[in-house]
């Protein structure tokens, strides 16, 4: 007896999807009837399908999803026995979902423009609830976003409840909020206002501002109060976000300036030689990064995302070798003639630019964007903490740390500092001045190569990219004061921030012009820069 009971339960459970309660069956039959009806009833059917997406059982939703899709794709055929969904492998009866043939006289309902919109909404709503694929659900949400206020109230709440992807869930909540904001119930609207104010950005502000024209704003004092409070909170959040965004982009610009200038600072501080090819060494660093990426793509595609890290030693060593070569062949002979070294290094920069142009062409190089420099975290207002900028900043900080350690803690650094302060005395004390020069030039060039690497994911890389750097980075060096790393850091931060502050007011070109003029004027007043090594002025 017991066994029999178990068996019966099993049979019932197995048949459950096809065994419908009488009421459900009538509902579905009625819906199918509407689907096969005239234009008006087709519209009702579309709304009913959307309703199922909000309130129906999982089975209902799966059934409705198939129907909505079939109507849009014109795969639904109405005939004397009801309706059937035509699939590639055969036809299924719309109601019972059992295979059956479709009579020749069957008619396919045609959607009017208005009904098509209704069905697309229904399809999207059902996809939001039933689609297994995140991308499909996200696409459905984008479709629904435009008519969020006309959707059934529980639809989005229910979808949020079952959503597994956190990013999509957040988006759904935002859309749900917008829908709640326009709901007829004032309490709901006020609650929605509070939730919107919690994530202040410009979109939220426009949403709330739109409510000022709402009749309820004038009629309901409680609602008015809530709207005003939300506007204030959001405006404040946006202001804070803007300030942070400016600071952040200034910081990232400063870190690029610093990267470009630190190599120049070491060389200029030590030898009084301006390496006009410094920008080209940056460019070569970026090209080497690209070459490393291509080699990895060929031989170890699984490591492709890590090319920026793997290229660090390659870029440094190659550009340092080029620098050492330059020093040994060319600049060694020009230490007593610094103006000639300007021309000589300019010749080198001309040569390198054109060599790269002839070898690689003039087009911008394409870089893979690894996951650790993609996207960002929205913080407050419109301020997004983007990872590519963070990469440049972290890279600059690491470079600063390593350079500082090298200068302060190693024998080479000690020698470099000694020669920077007094070349002749250092020579008298037995420091191999020429070798120190060579190593320092290599170090400065290697740092330029690293700058190129850090720029690769955020800058357009082409043979001309180096030309823009030399003036900016030299300004950083002289503003900071020759031979001080601290000065270079402070000057880079200052120039970066001032530039970013002026930019929104008068545009990028004007910002550059004003900053350069300010530096030129400053140097007339204090030629030794911000942080000068104390000494007799010559």
């Amino acid at each position, binding site marked *: 007896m017991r066994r029999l009971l178990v068996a019966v339960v099993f049979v019932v459970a197995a048949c459950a999807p096809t065994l419908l309660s009488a009421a459900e069956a009538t509902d579905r039959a009625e819906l199918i009837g509407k689907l096969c009806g005239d234009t008006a009833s087709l519209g009702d059917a579309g709304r009913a399908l959307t309703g199922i997406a909000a309130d129906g059982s999982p089975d209902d939703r799966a059934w409705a999803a198939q129907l909505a899709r079939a109507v849009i794709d014109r795969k639904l055929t109405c005939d004397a026995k009801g309706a059937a969904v035509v699939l590639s492998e055969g036809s299924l009866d719309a109601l019972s979902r059992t295979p059956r043939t479709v009579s020749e006289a069957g008619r396919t309902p045609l959607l009017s423009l208005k009904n098509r919109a209704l069905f697309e909404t229904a399809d999207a709503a059902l996809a939001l609830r039933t689609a297994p694929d995140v991308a499909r659900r996200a696409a459905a949400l984008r479709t629904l976003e435009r008519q969020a206020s006309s959707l059934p109230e529980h639809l989005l709440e229910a979808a949020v409840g079952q959503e597994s992807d956190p990013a999509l869930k957040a988006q759904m909540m935002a859309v749900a909020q917008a829908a709640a904001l326009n709901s007829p119930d004032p309490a709901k609207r006020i609650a929605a206002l509070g939730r919107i104010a919690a994530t202040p950005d410009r979109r939220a502000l426009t949403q709330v501002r739109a409510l000022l024209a709402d009749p309820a704003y004038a009629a309901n004092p409680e609602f008015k109060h809530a709207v005003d409070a939300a506007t204030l909170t959001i405006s404040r959040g946006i202001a804070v976000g803007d300030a942070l965004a400016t600071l952040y982009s200034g910081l990232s610009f400063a870190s690029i300036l610093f990267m470009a200038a630190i190599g120049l600072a070491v060389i200029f501080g030590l030898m009084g030689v301006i390496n006009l090819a410094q920008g080209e060494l940056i460019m070569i660093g970026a090209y080497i990064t690209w070459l490393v990426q291509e080699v990895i793509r060929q031989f170890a595609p699984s490591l492709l995302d890590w090319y920026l890290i793997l290229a660090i030693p390659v870029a440094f060593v190659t550009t340092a070798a080029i620098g050492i070569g330059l020093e040994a062949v060319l600049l060694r002979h020009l230490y007593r003639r610094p*103006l000639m070294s300007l021309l*000589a290094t300019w010749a080198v920069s001309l040569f390198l630019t054109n060599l790269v142009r002839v070898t690689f062409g003039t087009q911008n190089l394409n870089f893979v964007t690894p996951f650790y420099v993609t996207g960002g975290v929205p913080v407050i207002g419109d301020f997004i903490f983007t990872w590519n900028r963070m990469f440049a900043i972290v890279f600059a900080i690491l470079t600063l740390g390593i350079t500082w350690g090298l200068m302060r803690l190693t024998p080479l650094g000690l020698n470099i500092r000694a020669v920077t302060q007094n070349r002749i005395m250092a020579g008298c004390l037995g420091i191999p001045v020429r070798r120190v020069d060579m190593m320092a030039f290599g170090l400065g060039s290697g740092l330029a190569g690293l700058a190129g690497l850090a720029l690769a994911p955020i800058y357009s890389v082409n043979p001309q990219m180096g030309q823009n750097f030399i*003036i900016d980075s*030299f300004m950083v060096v002289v503003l900071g004061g020759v031979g001080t790393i601290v000065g270079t850091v402070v000057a880079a931060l200052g120039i970066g921030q001032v530039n970013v502050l002026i930019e929104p007011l008068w545009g990028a070109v004007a910002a550059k012009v004003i900053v350069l003029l300010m530096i030129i004027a400053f140097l007339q007043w204090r030629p030794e820069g911000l942080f000068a090594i104390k000494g007799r002025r010559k």
Partner: protein
Amino acid sequence: MKPLASHHAFSILLAAVLAVALLLVISIATPFGLSAYVANTVGQLAAFAVLALSLDLIWGYLGILSLGHGLFFGIGGYVVAMHLLKHSWQVTGKVPDFMQFMGWSEFPFYWAGFGFFPYALLVAVAVTLLISGVFGYVSFRSRVGGVYFAIITQALVYVAMLLMFRNDTGFGGNNGMTGFAVVFGWPIELKSVVIAMSAVSVLVLGMILLGCRLLLESRFGILMIATRDDEVRLRTLGYETLRLKLVVWCLSALIAALAGMLYVPQVGIINPRLLSPELSLEIAVWVAIGGRGHLIGAVIGAVLVNAVKFWLSAAAPELWPFILSGLIVLVVLVFPNGLVDLAKLKLVRPMGAKRLSSETTELH
């Protein structure tokens, strides 16, 4: 007083310049002589030679390297372009391209009076003197020199280029100014006018050469060379070098502006690329290759480098930058005084040739 090339070589150069000028004058009056194309090329080369002379005056004889002389060249060029456009508009009624581009029907107010050449000339002189005077005074007073001065002048010309690239300034923006139709009432494309402009350029080159020579042979010139060789000593002896440097700097800027005024009518276009730091660096390269500290060196360097450039940018444009960079390295390493060293090779033992000591006292 003998680092100057010998009087002999200078006289030959001056005679050659005057002979070219004479040839050009003959070409205007008679059907013989040079074609308009050749004459135009010669005229442009002469303008470049004047520009090189202006830099040689300050770098070769005062030891101050400016990498921003393109700024003054550009000022001269822009002012004369404004004059030509306004003048052409007055004669032909054609509205300049850049104004059509910006949708302006009237000239901006600061274009007033530019149709009148003496006024344009006055503006060019005044602007050049103002900028070079102010910048020179503050720089020399705080004793900014050497590499610092070079890079700051480069930044200055870079700033000017960025400004001129803006379309709303009323100076043509990134397209620059072109379409000059009339010069002093004459159609600018007429063969005799082209040759005449070239002849004027060559004559001006001769006059500037002679003028520089006279200046350098005067007491003032001796002071210049003394300043170049040991400024600290001169100051210690009680001579204030500030005024001297300022005067030569402004003079050099004026000559560069004059070169721009000669150059632009002959090429028929000006755009902000004239203000690019690369062009200003190239001027220094001409002088270095020809031999700085020699008037003939600057002229020969400018003419030679640009003649090769004209020829190669048509024949093998890819090759030119490589040749130029090779030339610079060669000059810098092997012939520190430029091609003038070649002449000396025969007269003195090569290794014994004294190098200019001008740069040993630089600040850095």
